């Protein structure tokens, strides 16, 4: 032991070989460990084009859905009714009031915004009353522009982008007027991140 040769760094040959062994082992196994992949929940990322199903079980139709009216829809819907209760899967399906062009018989008169308020995640909803016609959060009074989904009053409006604009869904309609949700891309530069926001 005592006559072991010391390398230039003051390290013995045996220690150097041990270190090499340890480093080699970790390098050999590193590619097989999907670092951190375990932590995020993968169940919320399977996305498809699905019909807009209203709370009464029917599919939304742009010919019959009333102007200046909102319903709660679930997206992405799963076979698990517990997961369907999830507030993060709740969206406000809104037909704009007439003064914002809600009378048009196409998808441009519809909006879908995540119900999770960007301030502290209460569930806001759309108020169709005259003089309101905006999304209002019951907790701290954040108010959302129904045209863009951007907060214009209250604490959510004070947050820096992207946290001042609600994530949205895009809709398509077939020739009969039945409506579908286009597969969204979760990201701040596209449809947004639920509970975080979107660049308007």
């Amino acid at each position, binding site marked *: 032991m005592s006559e072991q040769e010391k390398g230039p760094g003051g390290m013995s040959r045996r220690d150097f070989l041990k270190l090499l062994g340890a480093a080699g082992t970790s390098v050999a196994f590193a590619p097989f460990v999907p670092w951190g992949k375990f932590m995020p929940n993968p169940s919320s990322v399977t996305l498809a084009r699905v019909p807009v199903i209203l709370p009464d079980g029917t599919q939304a139709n742009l010919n019959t859905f009333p102007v200046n009216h909102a319903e709660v829809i679930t997206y992405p819907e799963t076979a698990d009714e517990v997961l369907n209760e*999830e507030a993060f899967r709740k969206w406000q399906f809104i037909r704009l009031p007439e003064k914002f062009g809600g009378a048009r018989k196409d998808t441009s008169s519809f909006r879908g915004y995540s119900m999770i308020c960007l301030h502290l*995640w209460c569930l806001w909803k759309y108020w169709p009353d005259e003089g309101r016609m905006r999304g209002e959060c*019951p*907790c*701290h009074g954040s108010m959302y522009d129904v045209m863009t989904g951007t907060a214009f009053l209250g604490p959510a409006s004070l947050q820096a982008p992207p946290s001042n604009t609600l994530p949205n869904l895009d809709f398509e309609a077939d020739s009969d007027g039945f409506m579908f949700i286009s597969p969204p891309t979760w990201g701040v530069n596209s449809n947004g991140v639920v509970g975080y926001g979107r660049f308007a």
Partner: protein
Amino acid sequence: MAASLDRRNGFLEFIYWIWNELDRTIFTAIKFSFPARFVSPFGFLGMLTFIMFITLGVTGALLMFYYEPIMTRSWDSVAFINNDVPFGFHIRNLHYHGSNAMVMLAILHMYYQYFSGRYKIRNEVLWVTGVILGTVTILEAFTGYDIIFSERAELAISIAASLTNSIPIAGPMIRELAFGAGFHDFVLRFYAQHVFILPIVMLGLMAVHFPRFLVFDVPMVMAICGAMCLAGGVFPVDLGFKFEPTVPPGITVPEWYLTALYAFLRTQYDKFLTGVLWPALFIGVLLLTPFLDRYKKFSWKDRPWMTAFGITGISQILVTTYWGFYIPPDTTIPLVERLVIDPINLYLVMILLVPLSFGFTLMMIHLAKEAERKAKLAKANGPKKVSEIKLSIKWTNWLLVALLAFQVFLNIAAFNAFLSGMNNVNLWITGVILITFAGFFHLYRYAMSQSKNIPKPPKIPTTKLLESAQKPLSKTDQTKLPEEKLPQGQVVENVTPEIKTNTAELDLDKDPNLGMSDLKKP
């Protein structure tokens, strides 16, 4: 009494064997003392916090038998525990009030150490781990009341998660990694953190945090547990309203240890600043305290700056804790205006509290020093003014009997209350039982220490002589025959002729006191 204890049966022998074998374990490194007289509870608040931790572990484990960490079922399972499971009400209340007691005791423990300067004598590691432990304790309590998933819990979860979101750049990623993506994940993951991850972290920190000298004061432990039951009986924890995603939750405030933070959040300044940076600053300053304190002395009177800082912190915490709770009751003004705290107002008060606290501290130090000086003068000149309660043995005995009788009555009353379904009355009486037991134990301890003062009977010289002559004999006997080791009592019997020792005298020499029994003693 002494005779019956001397005879060891097999089971007792086994217990003593275990006790002795503990010599090989880490526990002997800890000096574990049961004080023989009243000692100030400030000295062992940490131990009381630990007792609460154990209580919470036991009650929490029992709650796990029924609790379901599923978004749509957790509230119902807690309601089931509370309303239908026998003793579920008790266990849930003990768990809830135990958590409050633990946070409170931890805070008191910290401030006692702060003002008495205990963190100085190479106790920096104890202090730093203690501050981290305190933070984790609050996180533990926070995750605990969140997983009921009532309306209030939902708001608390969303505040926690959105505060994590507000961290620049990495925030949303940290939130998704740590809490998942939705309330279903949050409940499940908060549960995992509450019942396993955070307690394990706490145990690890405790292994570092435990000092070598521990005080286990039975009456005070009993009194604290009793107070917990009393609190559960008088203020039973409610269930709140079940959270429904389509029904927006009403106005709620968090638990008392978070309302201070909530007051800052309610100013509606930037979330990251008010909700993350301010508390981080507070915890950071606490962590650095031993390294900032350059005074050579320990007492708060000799460290005016540190004391003033501490008092400022406490006053700001008290004010914001109340402010966070307070929501103007006038329902005619809009909700937002009722909730929002004017930031200029709040921060102005915070700043104003600084000179006020400094002035208060200087005044207190001045008064305390003056009182000290006067006391010294009085000690030198005046008569000795020390009053104490002295109970004769007779009265002590009668009091012990009376307390025992009272306990019997309380037990019957508690049982009666339980039979009639009055759970909170039962819990309350259980608290009284524990506190009565604390008094009983203290009186017993007092009586034992009083019995030490009984004058000894005159010694009989012959006994001592024979005893000393006998000792080397038995020792050589043992070294001679190591293989056929007989129980010591038998060896003595064989070697020496019958000697009646004066048992009364020996008992007195042995010190019948309960106090200062280390694990090393057999």
